[in-house]
């Protein structure tokens, strides 16, 4: 992602500080994560301190300061999923991919994240990859699910 593209996004939001979250979301969608130099650039262009931009970028879970994989796996660890064995599902995914929660595989294919509730408790234990829902998960279904990608 180059600075021209960032300029375009900034201009689309009228260079206003109030739209910082939307600007960061757009950058995140395009670049897959929030690179440091781009955050500094945004801060400079909007005329706000970098510490302020970083405060937003680290506050929301939607933002990532580390490069993320092409597919983001979200494992639900909410109460309903938890009691139905979401932890075991998570452990299986971790073992299959060889990464821990929050990490990205070395080939940048998957990023593993945990969420606290996806609001689809009837489907629990629930795993979401990109925008595909995998309900009623168990440990045996995990390798098959990962093979789809």
């Amino acid at each position: 992602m180059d600075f021209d593209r960032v300029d375009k996004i900034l201009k689309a939001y009228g260079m206003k500080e109030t739209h910082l979250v939307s600007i960061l979301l757009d950058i995140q969608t395009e670049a897959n994560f929030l690179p440091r130099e781009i955050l500094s650039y945004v801060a400079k262009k909007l005329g706000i301190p970098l510490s302020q931009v970083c405060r937003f970028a680290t506050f929301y879970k939607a933002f990532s300061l580390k490069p993320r994989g092409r597919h983001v796996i979200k494992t639900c660890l909410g109460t309903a999923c938890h009691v139905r064995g979401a932890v075991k599902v998570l452990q299986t995914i971790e073992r299959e991919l060889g990464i821990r929660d929050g990490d990205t595989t070395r080939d940048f294919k998957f990023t593993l994240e945990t969420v606290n509730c996806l609001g689809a408790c009837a489907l629990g234990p629930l795993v979401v990859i990109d925008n595909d829902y995998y309900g009623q998960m168990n440990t045996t279904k995990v390798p098959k699910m990962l093979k789809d990608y």
Partner: protein
Amino acid sequence: MITIRLNGADVKVEEGWTILEACKFYGIAIPTLCYNEGLSPYGGCRLCLVEIGEGHRAKLASSCTYPVEEGLAVHTDTKRVIETRKMMIELMLSISPNSKVIQDLASKFGVTKVRFKIRNEECILCGLCVRMCREQMDGKAIGFQKRGYKRKISTPFDIRSEECRLCGGCIYICPACQLRCQGPEADTAVCNACLTMDPTCLDHYDELQCWMYDAGRCGTCVREKIEKEKTVSSKS
């Protein structure tokens, strides 16, 4: 000029003042920690809580951020306020027991025990350093990062900031940076040594020896008050 009811008395205050400023003007002491005259109010430490409103509709509000309004009823020392204040000091003590400022507050307001797990985090997230850097030093180098229990104060990306001029303003204003009198490895989480302050020099001299208005600095005043109390109670 508008009128508010401050502890039951009608007083005139300037419009645009906060409750804290009004109380200060009329000489009512309200403890503060995250408030500093040169910085914008933050309302984070909750020590300056006062009760506003009357009767069962009374609610607690931080006086440093609450602007005065016509007919506002303020009570600064109700049971509820004092108990909440003590609870806040206790909570802050459990987070940062090595801070002299918080230990002094504990002694002043009679907090003698901590019922929470001691966390030794050395930061109570009062935001004084952030505001100091931003508003007075024009540095804007540090800020809050992350959220919830991971919230912390740091430079962007946790690396040495280019905007930081190492002025030390953040350390100057930090209430947790000044270590407590007994040092960081004291036996108990709550000190309360100031509660046992009792000039021992009067046993030997006719006059107090602390001319520098630094009572207790030499450390001789701190004697075991418990023993003394025991003897008093046994006599009576």
